């Protein structure tokens, strides 16, 4: 059980900090409300369906999602390598470098061909 203690402590610390921040901000912060403040945060979408043919998301969100998922999921291979990095030694390092080179090639391709321009 004691191996989980650090995780538990970390959880308690995080929760405590969140609670502390909210409470202290509510007590000490100035209270000025305006329209911009009540909007969704800048990277979010409006929480209610927008009048775009029955609540469809614009297609460009799918592009962002595709780029995200491909680079995000590929990194799953780093976890087993990171856990066993000492035992895997040079062989593992070289294999991982080859793998990352391939990912960088794909990234360079996406960047050069305008896949990261979302407007």
């Amino acid at each position, binding site marked *: 059980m*004691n*191996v989980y203690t650090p995780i538990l402590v970390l959880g308690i610390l995080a929760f405590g900090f969140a609670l502390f921040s909210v409470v202290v901000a509510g007590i000490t912060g100035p209270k000025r409300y305006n329209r911009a403040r009540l909007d969704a945060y800048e990277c979010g979408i409006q929480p209610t369906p927008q009048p775009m043919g029955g609540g469809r998301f614009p297609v460009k969100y799918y592009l962002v999602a595709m780029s995200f998922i491909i680079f995000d999921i590929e990194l799953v291979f780093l976890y087993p390598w990171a*856990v*066993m990095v000492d*035992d*895997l030694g040079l*062989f593992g390092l070289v294999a991982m470098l080859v793998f990352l080179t*391939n990912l960088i*090639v*794909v990234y*360079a*391709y996406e*960047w*050069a*061909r305008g896949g990261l321009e979302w407007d």
Partner: protein
Amino acid sequence: MVHLAVPMAETLTFPSLQYRAMAPILIVLGAAVLGVVVEALVPQAARRAVQLAVTLGGLATALVFVVATPGSELGVVAGGTLAIDGPGLFLQMTILVVAIAAMLVVAERRVDPAGDAFAPRASSLVGSGEEQEQTRRGWSQTEVWPLSLFAVGGMLLFVTANDLLILFLALEVMSLPLYLLAGMARRRRLLSQEAAMKYFLLGSFASAFLLYGSAMLFGYAGSLDFAAIADAFRDKPGQLGLQVIGLTLLGAGLLFKAAAVPFHMWAPDVYQGAPTPITGFMAGAVKVAAFGALLRVMYVALGGAAWEWQPAFWVIASVTMLVGVVLAVTSSDIKRMLAYSSVAHAGFLLLGVVAFSTAGLSATMFYLLAYGLTTVGAFAVVMLVRGPSGEAGHLSSWAGLGRTSPVLAGVFALFLLALAGIPLTSGFTAKFGVFAAAIEAGGVWPVIAAVVASAISAFFYLKVIVLMFFARPGPDAPAVVVPSLLTTTAIGVAVVATLLLGVFPQAFLDLASGSTPFLR
């Protein structure tokens, strides 16, 4: 300190990698990655030439490495995941030859007033101003090349996979680029995109079946390795549920790629909708890869269970041939007709697979070589016959082609005769081989069905030949494009192979039978 990790050996053992034996696969996949770099760094104007060089160079180098593989390198390599053996090398050679011919056709630029057969950017809206601007500037689609190379790399892996995981990965590496390639046609793009979507949805459905079947076999045998699965079938009775479910689902996934009935529904739609050079590539090379993997799985991993799958496969083979030819007779579009004919050929090829003998193995491999090259040639000819709005798909517009362009019609007639299996063409030698192997294995009734199917198939192949040579050209007679050296070379190779394998087949028959059996 408490250890969370599962108990394991103190020192890890690394798999030894036999780079020489794996060289063809590594070269093709390396060329594909290089192709992506080229896409990123080389400016639009120079990209096509560079990609063409990378693609053809990569494929040719890989072919040289396959042919020159020394006998001492043969064996099960890379920690037991790949089997570089006689059949594997023969199939890799076939795939590379077919792929090179197909890539020459893909490179053809005279088929359309605007250039090659592909949309400048597959993602642009069809007919939009953006697309017209791209066409006006003469942009060409160059992503075709790396995508094709990835597909070829997957195929080379697929026919040598000796492990359920590699089998699944190779299947996906082969299929994912093909789904995209199917949707890139310049003309009739809506049709093309629709074909891509159908191919994608049905293809991933089939690979999910293959994966679940692999999971069941893994549960039964306790290993992913084909040899270990074969041992389990021999030594470990019981758990019939896992055996049968695993075998059925894995077989269904593989038969889908091979386009056998009842998993053939995608073939006509995808063959018709995809850009014709890609259709030739798919019909030729994918067929080789699918049957190569099917042969290895059935002979090596599931050989001990032959009594379980053989009866079902006899039925599937017979039904596939008959359904394929009957549907081909009823279709009026040339690409659909060739697609149904490819379904029928899947049935003939299955006769060799189900024979489950050395003769069946070598006959199937010879058939794949003959069929792959003939098919690439046939689709290349289809690409060249064009009406005002793209290819002249409907059979009626092929009327009288023998009078207006006798050489092209003659070449096409040769390909059709080979597909029908007329003597002195490669198709006859190939069919004879699989029929003999099937009879030897006791499949008299399936061979009778095959002979009936061949007779029916001769009807619709000859119908096209008669139409070309003995009918008058209609008012909407298509124009025949005079191809550049690229397509001419590809068609020439196909013609030579079709005749050579028909008239002097012995050297190639010996090569195929000398390549057997599978190593495990």
